[in-house]
């Protein structure tokens, strides 16, 4: 098969409109939500499992590398495809195939948008719990690949706790089913291993998710604190009281400012930090726990504790949290975010490190993160057009990741390793640990045709290049 024949062959499978091979069009398939960029050899947009399987078979025979792409909101370069590779994108496979109210499940295609699914099943009195801040855009297929999290994963667990079955196309085009309606099955938990494999094990073509019934009561608190230290203490106090709220998020002063620049989320401008806490459950339970949460907040030095009066106010508080990253655009044109995790009791220590790093490197850092499970998102704000600033930010990020590892934490809580963090893997795993992981990949994809070159260190240090405007060479007239 020549390379031209290859394109012809996949065109006969999906139709001419859905094979993209002109470089000018490929310009828009070279990025995801992160920084890296690479123009794929071609992009194919299949419409169903059969097309996926046939395309994969053809690519396998042609010896090609294949990289999946959902909505391209990933933050670790997962969907970035090398020029020799074929990108297989799922926006057309976006049907919700079935909602089962007895078993509380939904069967969807991988291109379904997270929020669309949640909105749809709410019509049946249920919900899809994982709620990444990108939920308006990200796809279920991408969520599975990254094992995406979100604020409400504190109580309900990340994507892996909510995906019970999958139809998967392997690198050679074979279709297999992992997991299913029955929550337990004989044999190895391939479904569990697959979630979070960053597109290296197989291509997901159907997804069976577990849905939760809607709670009787939801109550949202805004704890207002004079500084970040006291807010951290409050987090420990709440968890230490034996309370695991549905969500527990922290927003620091700088992030408050950014958010309030764009929209009035109801965060006080002069607060040192706010905690957004949500309780869900039976009326009696929420009442009972509310008292304890409020007490814990006051005891740890809250300046004020507010409760959202109605859905509109609750919505407003959450909009602020969920648009925070975008709102950083009002402070600086660029940001770089670290996704490290530390044990919850180490939050204070870690955030002190963050501010120390911020000072030492002269980089502004904002913090808006999943405090309840210790998942930080220190976010460096800068103008990449200034020469040298990118390198500086990368060095600061490396220090922060090292600190997370030192404190008994890890590199990534929800965004994945991808290209971006692969060289940092030795901070938390030995060669033997990683060899064991690689064995699983060998079992799923013996030829290593799916998204190769991600996750594991191979010496090719990932380094985002400087912004064009920061380059002295005048190639960008």
């Amino acid at each position: 098969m020549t390379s031209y024949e290859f394109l012809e062959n996949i065109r006969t499978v999906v139709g001419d409109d859905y094979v993209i091979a002109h470089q000018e069009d490929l310009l828009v398939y070279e990025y995801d939500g992160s920084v890296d960029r690479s123009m794929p050899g071609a992009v194919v947009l299949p419409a169903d499992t059969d097309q996926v399987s046939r395309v994969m078979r053809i690519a396998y025979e042609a010896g090609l590398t294949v990289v999946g792409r959902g909505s391209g909101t990933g933050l670790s370069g997962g969907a970035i495809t090398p020029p020799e590779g074929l990108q297989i994108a799922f926006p057309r496979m976006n049907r919700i195939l079935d909602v089962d109210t007895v078993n509380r499940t939904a069967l969807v295609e991988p291109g379904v948008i997270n929020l669309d699914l949640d909105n749809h099943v709410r019509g049946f009195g249920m919900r899809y719990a994982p709620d990444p801040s990108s939920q308006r855009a990200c796809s279920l297929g991408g969520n599975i690949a990254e094992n995406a999290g979100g604020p409400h994963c504190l109580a309900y667990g990340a994507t892996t706790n909510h995906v019970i079955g999958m139809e998967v196309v392997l690198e050679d085009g074979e279709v297999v089913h992992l997991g299913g309606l029955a929550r337990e099955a004989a044999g190895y938990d391939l479904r569990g291993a697959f979630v979070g494999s960053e597109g290296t094990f197989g291509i997901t073509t159907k997804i069976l998710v577990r849905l939760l019934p809607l709670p009787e009561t939801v109550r949202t608190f805004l704890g207002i604190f004079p500084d970040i230290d006291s807010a951290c203490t409050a987090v420990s106090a709440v968890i230490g009281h034996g309370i695991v709220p549905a969500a527990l998020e922290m927003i620091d002063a700088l992030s408050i400012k950014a958010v309030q620049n764009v929209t009035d989320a109801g965060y006080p401008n002069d607060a040192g930090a706010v905690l957004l806490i949500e309780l869900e459950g039976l009326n009696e339970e929420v009442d009972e726990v509310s008292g304890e949460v409020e007490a814990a907040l006051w005891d740890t030095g809250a300046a004020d504790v507010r409760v959202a009066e109605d859905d509109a106010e609750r919505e407003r508080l959450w909009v602020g949290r969920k648009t925070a990253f975008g709102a950083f655009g009002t402070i600086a044109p660029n940001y770089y975010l670290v996704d490290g995790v530390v044990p919850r009791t180490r939050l204070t220590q870690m955030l002190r490190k963050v501010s120390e790093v911020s000072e030492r490197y002269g980089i502004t850092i904002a913090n808006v993160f999943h405090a309840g499970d210790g998942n930080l998102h220190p976010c460096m704000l800068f103008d990449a057009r200034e020469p040298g600033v990118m390198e500086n930010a990368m060095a600061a990020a490396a220090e922060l990741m090292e600190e997370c590892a030192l404190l008994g934490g890890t590199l990534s809580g929800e965004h994945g390793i991808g290209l971006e963090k692969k060289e940092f893997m030795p901070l938390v795993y030995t060669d033997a640990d990683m060899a064991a992981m690689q064995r699983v990949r060998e079992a799923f994809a013996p030829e290593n045709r799916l998204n190769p070159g991600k996750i594991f260190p191979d010496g090719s240090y990932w380094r985002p290049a400087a912004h064009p405007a920061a380059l002295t060479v005048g190639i960008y007239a």
Partner: protein
Amino acid sequence: MTTTPSIAGQLAELIGPSAIVDAGDLGGYAIGQWLPVVAAKPPNADEVAEVMSWAHRTGVAVYPSAGRTSTQLGNAPARPGIALDLAGLNRLVDFQPADLTVSVEAGATIAQLDEALAQDGKHVPIAAPIADRATIGGTLATGISGPLRSAYGLPRDWLIGISVVGADGTQTKAGGKVVKNVTGYDLNRLYTGSLGTLAVITEATFKLAPAPTDWAVILAAFDGVDSAANAAQNLQSQYYAPLGLHILTGEAAQRIDPSMGESALAVAVSGGRPASMKRRVEDTVGLWSPVAGTVRVARGDEANGLIRTLTDLPADAETPPSMCVRINAPPSALPEVLAFANVPMGNLPPPSVVADVGFGGGRLLWWGDPESADPENVATGLRGIQSAAGRLGGAAIIERCPDDAKVHFDVWGEQPSGMQIMRRLKRQFDPQNILNPGRFVGGL
């Protein structure tokens, strides 16, 4: 001519004679009629690694065990080998109540862990029969779960980090000590439920939950499984749905509450804080009273005792069932699962059924003496159950049955989709097939 020292001798040299179990005690390590050549009981992970490297060099098969409460599970061993007893690794390594995490060695028992965590009002909501013997490692390896699985999930949902010794003796870990982690592949879930065929688990880290401070078990007798199923499904759809909800028939029901008579018994297990518990119990009783024969509420110690009995039904210490089948099926198949109670399978009498309303599926249990039954007939009956379960969109795993019957079929049922991946996994992790050979699905 030099004589190679015996296997026991080689191992004693490696890990010390005190770590070799007396030959007279080998009977305790029987897997059905199979007996190990030697049983080694190393005191720590390094010594486990020594044993595994030795096995790797010699190609001798290794059958890991610890509490030996579930040795019945699985096909018969494929060949002779040694028993590797992990009960020596029983330390609580690191308990961080404020972080809500705990690390514990694989040989520690569930009861031991429960007790330590309870000091601080925490728990890992995993459960296995005979908690004072069942170990953490064994529970993870079998993937077994307790009666509250519908609310709390499976052991794999609580495991955040794991240390293992590979088939070649290499010690590796996966995951970590934080509750949220996507750094590298999720091997926690792969090792959980792998029946020790990929690696030997030496240590596990769990995330914790605050333990309910108050428990109640609400029991209701119904005149038949249909009315019990309706009432239970109704309760399951309420805001105050319990943590565990089961329908029991026959002997199983009798064991929970003999006073309830020969009827179908619905059992709801609720836990929480005092104020919400009042509502949970009252509303449940209110919902069931009009439709049930009798409704009874057990609190405090009685409730705890009932939860333990419920957990131990598949394998209690004194009078375990002679046969036990786990049905994996979706919740919508509740009527079909309950229907097993009326169907004799071949020569087998109809079983007692314990149906898990919220999670789906359940267990079929037989007490009495199956040894008298013809093994081939037993196998035919069990195969029939397996194909019936397959038609429900699930599977039946024979957790306990006479050894002679096992030669006639695979206790794990039909080979699942993705079997080729599982075979490749096994080859990758254990190329010489020395870990628990022959015991898992399709002879893995």
